[in-house]
């Protein structure tokens, strides 16, 4: 089976607590995948493992069938084309909105290249384009610390897109957004799928439904069910651990 992202039998524990217990997940190139599951199911930890922030104790994690992701670090995974949006929106608060996007743009990341980097008109245009997409064009010069929670989410999505990643790992993007914004995010992610691989973690079932894609339910660090939203919602175990609360 050809999978862009391949996790098999992954295990990880923290001080004896088993957070991930035999997790296997295969995601095709261009696929849109939603991950749901109760708090503490291991969704964020799974993303930590994919991006090299956390090393698994056991199991395989492969990128494009060749690259062993258990051997990379965060910067390495980003350079491979894996972009990540944190659960808690994280932007660089004392930089302007524009500079946040500017830092994320796909450029040479070496120390000396950044020391002598000149901002080109092409960069400025790309920043403008992205700011329009995430509807922050009017906030361009503001310090990002001044943005609302929802706007920070959007800025982070803008930064994610600026990196031009092949795979987007999006952790709870809808938190702090209005219903309207939530639907717009779902639409944006649906548009990105196809040309990008997208994995979204979300609790908001309306949002997941709007994504209209294959859903994986995680529970206690492993996959409990997988399939369409209607399929997993009908699973009694899923109802018991997650939906029925």
């Amino acid at each position, binding site marked *: 089976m050809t999978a862009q992202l391949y996790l098999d039998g992954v295990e990880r524990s923290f001080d004896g607590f088993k957070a991930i217990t035999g997790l296997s997940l295969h995601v095709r190139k261009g696929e849109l995948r939603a991950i749901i599951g109760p708090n503490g199911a291991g969704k964020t930890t799974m993303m930590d493992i994919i*991006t090299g922030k956390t090393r698994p104790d056991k199991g395989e994690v492969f990128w494009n069938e060749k690259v062993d992701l258990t051997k990379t670090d965060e*910067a390495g995974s980003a350079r491979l084309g894996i972009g990540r949006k944190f659960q808690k929106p*994280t932007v*660089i*608060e004392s930089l302007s909105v524009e500079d946040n996007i500017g*830092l994320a743009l796909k450029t040479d990341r070496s120390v000396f290249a*950044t020391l*002598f*980097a000149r*901002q080109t008109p092409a960069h400025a245009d790309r920043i403008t384009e992205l700011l329009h997409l995430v509807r922050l064009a009017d906030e361009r010069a503001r310090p990002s610390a001044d943005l609302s929670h929802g706007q920070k989410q959007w800025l982070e999505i803008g930064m994610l897109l600026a990196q031009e990643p092949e795979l987007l790992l999006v952790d709870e993007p809808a938190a702090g957004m209005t219903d309207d914004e939530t639907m717009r995010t779902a639409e944006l992610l649906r548009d990105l799928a196809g040309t990008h691989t997208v994995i979204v973690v979300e609790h908001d079932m309306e949002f997941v439904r709007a994504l209209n894609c294959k859903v994986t339910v995680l529970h206690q660090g492993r996959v409990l069910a997988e399939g369409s939203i209607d399929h997993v919602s009908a699973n009694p175990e899923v109802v018991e651990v997650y939906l029925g609360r």
Partner: protein
Amino acid sequence: MTKLIDRRMGFFLIALFIAVVAIPVGNLAIEGKPVASYVVQLSGKYLCYALLAVALDLVWGYCGILSLGHGAFFALGGYAMGMHLMREIGTRGVYGDPVLPDFMVFLSYEQLPWFWLGFDQFWFAALMCMLVPGALAFVFGWFAFRSRVSGVYLSIITQAMTYALMLSFFRNEMGFGGNNGLTDFKDVLGFDLQSDATRAGLFIASAVALVAGLMIAKAIALSQLGKVLIGIRDAESRTRFLGYRVEGYKLFVFVVSAMMAGVAGALYTPQVGIINPGEFSPANSIEIVIWVALGGRGTLVGAAIGAIFVALAKTLLTGWIPEMWLFALGGLFVFVTLFMPRGVLGVIEESWAKLRRTEPVKEVTP
């Protein structure tokens, strides 16, 4: 260029320029010496401190690395220059040995230790006062940043570093003059260190070094790399996930800063006439942090002002009520942390901004 010299920097450079003209002129060219010689010497020393503060602000203010060991880089630069000055003494020492400094003759050295070779050349010493601190910062930073030591842990190991160096330099066997350090210098580049003209020259050289340090630091801060540094300071993890290898950036800025501190030390030694292991004292490094916090962290100019201000206060207070100095310094630090989080510069700029906001209102009324 306009960016490099913003208003803040402009004001500071003008003030510095006035001092650089007025102090030597007042000392050398005006009848009756309205500026005493010791004032020239003290002012030069303050400018060295200011450069040291700028160096610390570059790593702490912009990259969030709270180094409590910058005094060590300063002292190493000071020792490198001190070694040159020792070798310049030549046969004019008490023992009259053409090669060996007095303390080596006294400790019955047969020959010059290998690490003293080359220091008879000024250019070599000038290079070493940057390379030695830079190399130490590189090795130290390589291990610390790669193992992701940060925050208080990093601050503690930098203190340990300077403490360990202090203990080593205290030992006679190290070959750096033990607890007496290096002193009794005669001249530098053929100029008598006791003469007023040489002192004025060193003062001006310190001012030039300070301006160069400020410009380099500002250029780094304004570059794309400077933004990565702020990214590391504000959200290190975010910056990593954007694909930046944080350890490389930290290492770069730490080494640049250490070299800058080394230059400050090298200019300090000939002006105070001595360098001893006391300069490695952990308390010195903490004091640098106070200068920067007081002046305004992350402003560069503020760091320089903070250093000059505290050094001046120290000179005045220790002459007046010496036992109170440490309490005054501690009290000042607490006061600034609690009431002036953006430092003196922050307070000045905020009041300035308020003034400006009220002014135009008056102007519009016809």
